[in-house]
């Protein structure tokens, strides 16, 4: 017991540094470098706004990540609910005072940064539910009331995000939340039943969708329906990726992107540009880096002693995985276009901030993996 306390509470700075996951950090650094190069390419081979801004954000949030990792995991455990409520308040704030850009009200202007609280909610929901299930007794996990509370925790932010409207992010929040329920041991039967009832109610859900959202689904099913309008993005993205071939067209030589055929190449379609310029080989390399990152996070979860750390790490690993998959499926024409960024690669402050905070907590779990939480 005494030994434990010494270990857990009095880690020196050197010990903390030694405890960092260097493979994970290396992967993150490689990814950051690649993302800056890609930004440089989207700027047409010049250091312009996007490159500079992305680089500054990377530096800032990378530092933030390290800072977070040096705090004891217990701090994050204690403040989980608080963080969740703060961000919930921000979401409410957005729905009232948010900035409207092309029909969606998603952002608040904090003067030093334009913040998208829904992105932060993707992490906060994991934190919140991880704490919730950490504290719940095994016998109560499948009780009606506990599942009900968990669903409330998930549904409230989703309602707020859907109303912005932002379908993509709400799906990501939902899947991040639900995965914690799954990991915590909620009966598979329930998942199965809700999945079936979801399928049944799908037509009703679709009838509630906004016209542009319906159009996206129709376009996804048949991109050639309106090749210059709604289907344009999917078609151009597929052309860009397909024309990349095995080795790609070469750095700064992606014609689809630098001749502006590719929409939103900084953000959601950043992988398309990368894949056009670096080809199949480059894409596989990128997937490999992402896979290593996910595996490292899972490993940290696996060696963590506390259920909170485990739940958070596994949940976060899954969230990262889902972000990647949704984004890739979208640009590869396997899913309808739902705005969802590729972690770290995509331009965008809030998304990167959320991701880096997530990594910070994961690293904090790594540093304090022997820590038990009451």
């Amino acid at each position, binding site marked *: 017991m005494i030994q434990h306390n010494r270990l857990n509470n009095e880690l020196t700075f050197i010990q903390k540094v030694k405890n960092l996951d260097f493979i994970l950090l290396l992967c993150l650094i490689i990814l950051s470098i690649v993302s800056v190069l890609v930004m440089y390419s989207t700027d047409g081979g010049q250091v312009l706004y996007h490159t500079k801004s992305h680089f500054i954000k990377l530096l800032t949030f990378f530092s933030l990540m390290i800072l977070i990792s040096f705090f004891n995991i217990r701090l994050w455990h204690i403040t989980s609910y608080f963080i969740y409520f703060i961000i919930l308040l921000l979401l409410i704030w957005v729905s009232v005072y948010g900035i409207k850009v092309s029909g969606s009200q998603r952002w608040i202007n904090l003067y030093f940064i334009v913040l998208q609280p829904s992105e932060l909610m993707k992490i906060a929901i994991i934190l919140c539910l991880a704490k919730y299930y950490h504290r719940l*007794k*095994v*016998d109560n*996990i499948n009780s009606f009331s506990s599942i009900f509370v968990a669903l409330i925790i998930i549904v409230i932010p989703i309602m707020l995000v859907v109303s912005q409207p932002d379908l993509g992010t709400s799906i990501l929040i939902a899947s991040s939340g639900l*995965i914690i329920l*799954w*990991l*915590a*041991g909620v009966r598979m039967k329930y998942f199965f039943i809700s999945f079936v009832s979801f399928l049944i109610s799908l037509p009703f859900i679709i009838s509630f969708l906004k016209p542009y959202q319906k159009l996206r689904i129709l376009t996804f099913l048949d991109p050639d329906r309106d090749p210059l309008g709604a289907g344009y993005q999917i078609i*151009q993205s*597929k*052309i*860009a*990726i*397909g*024309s*990349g*071939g*095995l080795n790609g067209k070469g750095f700064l030589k992606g*014609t*689809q992107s630098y*001749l*502006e*055929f590719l929409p939103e190449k900084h953000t959601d379609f950043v992988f398309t540009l990368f*894949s056009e310029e670096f*080809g*199949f080989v480059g*894409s*596989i390399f990128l*997937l490999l880096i992402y*896979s290593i990152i*996910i595996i490292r996070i*899972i490993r940290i*979860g*696996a060696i963590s002693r506390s*259920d909170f750390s*485990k*739940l958070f790490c*596994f949940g976060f690993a*899954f969230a990262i*995985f889902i972000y990647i*998959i949704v984004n*890739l*499926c979208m640009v*590869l024409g*396997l899913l309808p276009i739902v705005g969802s960024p590729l972690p770290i690669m995509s331009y965008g402050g809030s998304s990167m901030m959320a991701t880096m905070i997530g990594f910070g907590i994961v690293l904090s779990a790594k540093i304090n993996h022997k820590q*038990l939480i*009451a």
Partner: protein
Amino acid sequence: MIKDSSGIRKTDIINRRMFIIGAAKLIIFSGIVARLFSLQINDNKKYLTLSDKNRIREWKLPPIRGNIVDYFGNIIAGNLKVYQLHIIPEQVENFNYILSRLKTLLELTDKKITKILKSKKQKKPWESIIVSENLSWEQFLKINNYLYDLVGVKPVMTISRNYPFSDIYTHVLGYVSQPNENDILQNKIIQERFVTGMKVGKLGLEKRLENYLIGTNDIQRYEVNAYGKRINQLEHQKGKQGSKIRLTLDTEIQKLSAKLLASKAGSISVMDIYTGEILAMYSSPSYDPNLFLFGISNDNWELIRNNPLKPLINKTLSGLYSPGSTIKPIVALSALENNIIGPNFKVKCTGKTELYGQTFHCWKEKGHGVMSLKNAMKQSCDTYFYEIARILGVDKLKITAEKFGLGKKVLGEYYENEKHGLFPNTVWKKNNLGKGWVLGETLITGIGQGYIQTTPLQLCLMTAQIANGGYKISPKIIVNNKPLNFLKAKKNMELKSSIEPNLQLIKDKKNLKIVQKAMFSSTNEIRGTSYRSRIDDPKYQFAGKTGTAQVKRISKRERELDLKLEQIPYKDRDHALYVAYGPYINPRYALSIIVEHGGSGSKAAAPIAKELFKLIIDRDAMREKQSNFEEIDI
């Protein structure tokens, strides 16, 4: 620190569930890899093509038309560098300022300004707007002086059709202008090579030979962005200039023809009697084809259209005239060939002939007295020809006339506006007018009046075939094989006709000799109708026949009045005609001249022949020498 059994169990659950998720992740990742593989490796070619289709766009430039040259290689339809003025709206700061500056500099009309503003709206900002298609040198200098002030304005050099001899070749060449819908629809090649700013043939040889002249486009391949803006040039594929076409025409003779017919309506044709090459073919008045290149102005067009001398009609090919007395050599030849008369046949002319109560007048009121064939031709005695036409009959006459090319197109395929003309006979009248032939009509046909209609070029061909010894030749305007000197050409012609008897137009050479001698006397002996226009030097000496074609029936009163030319209204005056060939010994060239409403052939047409023959014969040696040139296949 709680360390109950359920806590351990919870950790187990979490780990187990994690394992299931991990497996799912692996499967999904493999799916992504498979999708990437299928797009990037399997369908790479397809998407590469699509990506190239996206980014590469071709711009065709107007093809450069082939030159048309005269027999001596002088360019008569060529290409000229012209300076155009373009505005690129994207580069202009204040469009209205630039426009008002240009308006004063180039003296643009308000109409033009609105046109520019309209095209600015239709085009993308980086596409250039043509302000002026053809800047004069002064305008070009002016613009260059102020160019520092005109940001976004660009003088551009392009190539345009040019007719250096202005109006003297218009009816031969036609002209080019911007194609209309029909031009594009009717010609596949134009359709293929069409670019805005390109000009196509609208008339004449420019139209007929379009497919040879047109040339192929320069093609520029550019990389464009998603908005169609050119980013950089990938390739410039040079086109081929259209074929060069060489005509048989001689610019000097053409020029002289234009000069001789200045301010008159009429036509001159000159032909090589052995090869059929046309040396000159001029219809007066003419107009400047250069006016049409950039769209003719309304004023100019009205001026041309309303000219009473009708410059738009190619009189050489489309003008239909009664041949008048120029038909007499054929009437005489036909009578001789059909053995109706002998060389010594004589008729007494009293000034008029009565037939079934109708009076047919000779031009000489007092009569010529007893006339032989030679004298009748020399003095153009109408009574003599009434008589032999009467005996011969119009049907036999027509056979001879048709052999010599009357009533048929001469150049046929080259000019769509060429007319057949008409040589009547009894069957024709029955079929077309539904009435029987009247003998009186035979009489007036014998002096080239009545239904008969000929084009100037037909008369020229007729004369050429009389001059060359009665051999059929095929007239041509384009040089398409190696030219022969005249001895070879003559031999060739004779050789060909010995194989193909169709090419021999007459049975007995002696008959033709009689007619030729008669034509000689008409020009070179006292009392001959064109005696005053003769040239005594045997080098230039020519034989011919005058003609005076009435354009309306002369009333008895008018006949008695015997009005001077100036006293008759212009449109009632007779057409003056003259056909001739020369030199008389070893003839080489034939010509026909028509001066509309010029009065008598001897006064208005024959003197023109005198001037022409001097030049034609002088240039003969040069023409003979001209045989080294590249062959052109048409």
